[in-house]
Every structure is written in C-alpha cells, then in structure tokens.
C-alpha cells in the first residue's frame, strides 16, 4: 500500500518537473514549428544561473528565504536575455525552412550552448542544497517528503493555470492561437507574426529555465545535465502530441508515473521504460495522444 502511495507521489513530483520543461518545448513547437533540441541546454542554463544567484545570496548571509526569489529571478533573467538573443540572432533567419532543418539548427545550437556553459561556469559541479531543506519535511503515512517537492508540484500547477489563462483568456493568447492555426492568414490579417515568435520563444526559454532553476537545489548542477533532460522532454511531448498543452500535461503524468513505477518495481528497466511507452503510444497514435493525423488534400 505504502509502495503504491510512494509510486504515485514520486510520479506526480517527477511529472511536475517534466511538465514545466515539456510545456515550453511544446509551446515553441506549436507556434513556431520548431522542435528545439537546445531546450535541455536552456534548462541547464536556468539551473546554473539559479545556482550562481542563490549561492551568492546565501554566501552574502542574507535571509535564506530570499534564495527562493533568486531561483525565480534567475529563470526570468535567462528567459529574457537568452530567449530573444537566440530568436533574433539565429532562428529568425531560418523561418520557413523544413522542420527537420530546424531540428538540425537547434541541434547545432545545443552543441554550442553545452560548451558556452562550460566556458562560463567551468566544468566543476555547483551545489545549493539550502532551499531544498529549508522548508522541512512533511509526513505522509510512513513516508516523509521535503516540502520543497510540494513547491515543485505547486509551481507546475501554477504554470499550467497561468498558461491556460494566458492562451484562452487574453488578447495575446488569441493572437497566438491564430498563428498556431494558420500563420499565413494571421500575417495577412495584420498580426505581427515576428513579434509573436519572439514572445513565444522567450516564454519557452523561460519555462525551460524555470524547470532548471527549481531543480538546481535538488541535484548537483553539472555539465551535460541538459543532455538527458531534452530526450525526456521529447518523450513527454511526443506522447501527448507535439504542440498540445493538454498533451504535455498528460504526457508528463504518464512518463512520471511510468518512471516512478519502474523505479519501485522494475529498477532494471527504469532507463528505457519511458522510451518504450513513447514507442508504444506512437505505434497506436502516430501523432501522439492529443493530435490527430491529418490527410493531405489533393
């Protein structure tokens, strides 16, 4: 019984983390048709920035609670600086090209960012465990979880709710939906598609960075940390359906539960259970759970 509870709780925590990252990936794909292979590196950038900022804050001896603000600030900074830099400096020269070419472009970007991180932060690991332990633990039956994990889940829910409101409840969200639906018509209707792209990519970067910043206190921040994250996020969005928000949520939940189930019951399959699920889903639903395959009109 308690094992099942543990599987569920672990799964949900893991899913929250995945959701925040995957939702950025799927947003960028939905609007811009770019499957961003560098998304994992943006996640890593968020983690590094958070480790640096929160680390500096704590070393200065200021109120430890402020370190949470530093995590968020780091993510926002990465989003606002790196996002526009990449979109204006590189991606905008590639619009209109094949989706696969864009995958290759972002793969090249991934390679570059991996080394940029090493050049800026060096190759040693960073640790900022304080924010993780600061809030204490919460008991759930025989199990004990750090309250920080609840913060993670809360953050994911908040991100989901804000995005929903943003997309369905605001004027900007309507523009976004219009561009997703048909970019030529949107451009003809006078929507500034370029600005929509800039905002979208900035938002996507920010979401990756938030994922990284919130993870920073729970792991050691090391070079290459984005390499595995990106393929996990791929699995999530492909399962849910590329470009679908609900898909990202469901995909994250599936992957989260599958992984925590595997960790508890079949540890030897942990690493590939996720990809197995992804392959199975694609075998049945070629475009993922939330996207229907469409026939070409001739």
């Amino acid at each position: 019984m308690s094992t099942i509870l543990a599987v569920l709780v672990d799964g949900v925590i893991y899913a929250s983390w995945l959701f925040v990252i995957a939702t950025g990936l799927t947003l960028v794909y939905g609007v811009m048709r770019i499957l961003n292979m560098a998304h994992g590196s943006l996640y890593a950038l968020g983690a590094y920035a958070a480790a640096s900022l929160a680390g500096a804050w704590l070393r200065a001896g200021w109120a430890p609670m402020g370190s949470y603000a530093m995590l968020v600030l780091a993510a926002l900074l990465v989003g606002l600086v790196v996002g526009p830099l990449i979109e204006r400096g590189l991606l905008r020269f590639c619009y209109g090209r094949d989706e696969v070419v864009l995958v290759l472009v972002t793969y090249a970007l991934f390679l570059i960012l991996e080394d940029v991180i090493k050049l800026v932060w060096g190759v040693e690991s960073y640790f900022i465990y304080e924010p993780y332990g600061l809030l204490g633990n919460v008991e759930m039956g025989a199990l004990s979880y750090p309250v920080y994990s609840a913060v993670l889940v809360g953050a994911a829910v908040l991100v989901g709710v804000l995005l929903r409101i943003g997309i369905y409840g605001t004027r900007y969200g309507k523009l976004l939906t219009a561009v997703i639906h048909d970019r030529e018509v949107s451009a003809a209707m006078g929507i500034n598609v370029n600005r929509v792209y800039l905002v979208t990519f900035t938002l996507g970067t920010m979401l990756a960075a938030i994922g990284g910043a919130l993870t920073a206190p729970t792991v050691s921040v090391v070079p290459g940390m984005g390499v595995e994250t990106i393929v996990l996020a791929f699995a999530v969005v492909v399962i849910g359906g590329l470009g679908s928000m609900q898909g990202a949520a469901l995909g994250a939940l599936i992957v989260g539960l599958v992984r925590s189930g595997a960790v508890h019951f079949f540890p030897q399959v942990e690493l590939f259970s996720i990809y197995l699920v992804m392959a199975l889903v694609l075998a049945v639903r070629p475009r993922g759970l939330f996207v229907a395959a469409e026939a070409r009109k001739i």
Partner: protein
Amino acid sequence: MTSFRRTTLGLGVALLVMGLAAPLLPKWALFLVTIAIAKGMVALGLLLLMRTGLVSFGQGLYFAAGAYAAGVGSQALDLGDAVPMVLLGGLTAAAVAAGLGLLLARYRAIFFAMLSLAFSMILYGLLVKTSALGSTDGFNVAARTVFGLPIGSTLGRYGVYALAALCAFGAAVGLDRYLGSYLGRLAPAVRDNELRVEYMGASVRNLVHLNLVIAAAMAGVGGALTALAVGHIDPEMAYWTTSGEFVFVAILSGTASVAAPFAGAVLLELLRSFAYEHAPNTWQLVMGSAMLAVILFLPEGLWSIFRRRRRAAT
C-alpha cells in the same frame, strides 16, 4: 564516362592510395583513419536516408548493435577472425532495423527522427543494465586474426585498417550503384512527393523500410570496425549524442557524393584530435558553429563546393 564508372574509378584510386600510404603512416594516423572510415560508414547510411528525405537521430542504435554483436560473437561464438565479426555486426544491425522498420517506416520528418532516437535510448538503457555485457563499462573486444593473419604480425598490424578500407570501398561502390538503379532513384522521389510515388504503383513504406535496413547494415559494420579498432565497446555508442555526431558528419558532407561521408569523417577526426589537445572545452562549440554555417550557407554540404567548381569549369 558514366558517373558510376567515374565514382568507382575515383574510389578505386583512393583505395590504392590508402594501401600505398599505409606503411608510411604512424600508428595514430592509422587508427584515426580507421575510426574515421568506421564513422563514415554510418554517415554513408545516413546519406541514403537523407536522400529518402529522412534524418535519423538514432543511428547509434545500429552502430552499437553492430559493435556488441561483433564483441559477443567473438566471445560466445569464438570467432577469432575480424572478417566474420564485421559481417556479424552488419547482419545484426540489419536484422534489428528489419524488425524496428515495421514501425519506423510509417514515420517521417521529426517523428522519424524522434522515434529513432527513442529506440536508440531503449538499447542504451538495456545495455547499461545488462551486467553480462559489462553494464556502463562495456567490455574489451579483440580479434586474433584478420584475413587469417595474426594481429601481431607485421602485416596483421594493418589488418583492421585494410578491412575498414575495403568495407568502405565496397559500401560506397555498392551504394552508388544502388542509387543509380530504378529502385534507388525512388529515394529522392519519395523525399519530394510520396503521394505521387504511391500513385505510380510503388510502396513508399517498403522502400523506406529497405533503405532503413541498408543504412543500418552500414552502421552495424561501422560499429564492428570501431569495436575492433578501439578494442573496447560501451553503451555510449547507443547514446543519442553519438547519433548526433553521425548526423553532424552527414550534414557536413551533404548527399551529393558517396565519397563525401568518408572525407567528412576524416575531417571531423582530425579536427577532434586537434581540438582535444588545444581547447578541449570548445570542441562542441566548433562543431555546432560549423554545422550552423553549413546549414545556413551550404545547404548541400561541404562537398557542394567541389561540385560547383566542376560545374563552373565545364
């Protein structure tokens, strides 16, 4: 002269030069060229896929399958000679692709790329957890003989190098011939317009499946050759970043010539050994920038520079 004859002649000359140069090359250079050829084999398979309009971020799967098959074959089946080991590597990878192709051949574009990646990560996960195959550490692989010559003998030292060169020659000539056949010429047709190919009476899925198997066989041979040259294999060979490197070579080389992937791979290995010595933390940065430059300014790959010059000359 037909383009096929010209390519065969060119590759034949290259093979001859490689043979004549062998005694002059230092040991590290022999090793570098062997590894480059092995990786070039994988990139050659990608060339075929790219001509079919597909990019695979999972060729590491077949690369690793070939390497592990060669390694397991040498131990379990007691294959002492390198030739059957390489053969086994190629066949195993082809068999894996024949199976996975049932699913993969239904996908295109980014879905194909991602599903290939997922499959390679499944193999990676399996290998890491299989202690009989050395888990994360992998295990050592060695052949006792090459073409019947003991590895330690004077001639045997060049054995793996020669084997790699012959494999590359055979694969490149064979692929060139295939690409010129009616069947091979369906590849660009499928890339351009699948619907029309179906309406001309051919099964696109079967063609993609076939090309997938051919590409996998080449990657498997490349993996087995790598195992023999390095003397060691580990699960990293199946990791997605390994596949990414093959994509890098393929993009750099373009799809214009069957010789280009080998040239591209040699270039990559030279740059890598140079970078590792002088600036180990900027190697990926250099690779990424080179790749961006090629995609943005030379969409048909570096090889297209030669082609343009030739066209201008005629």
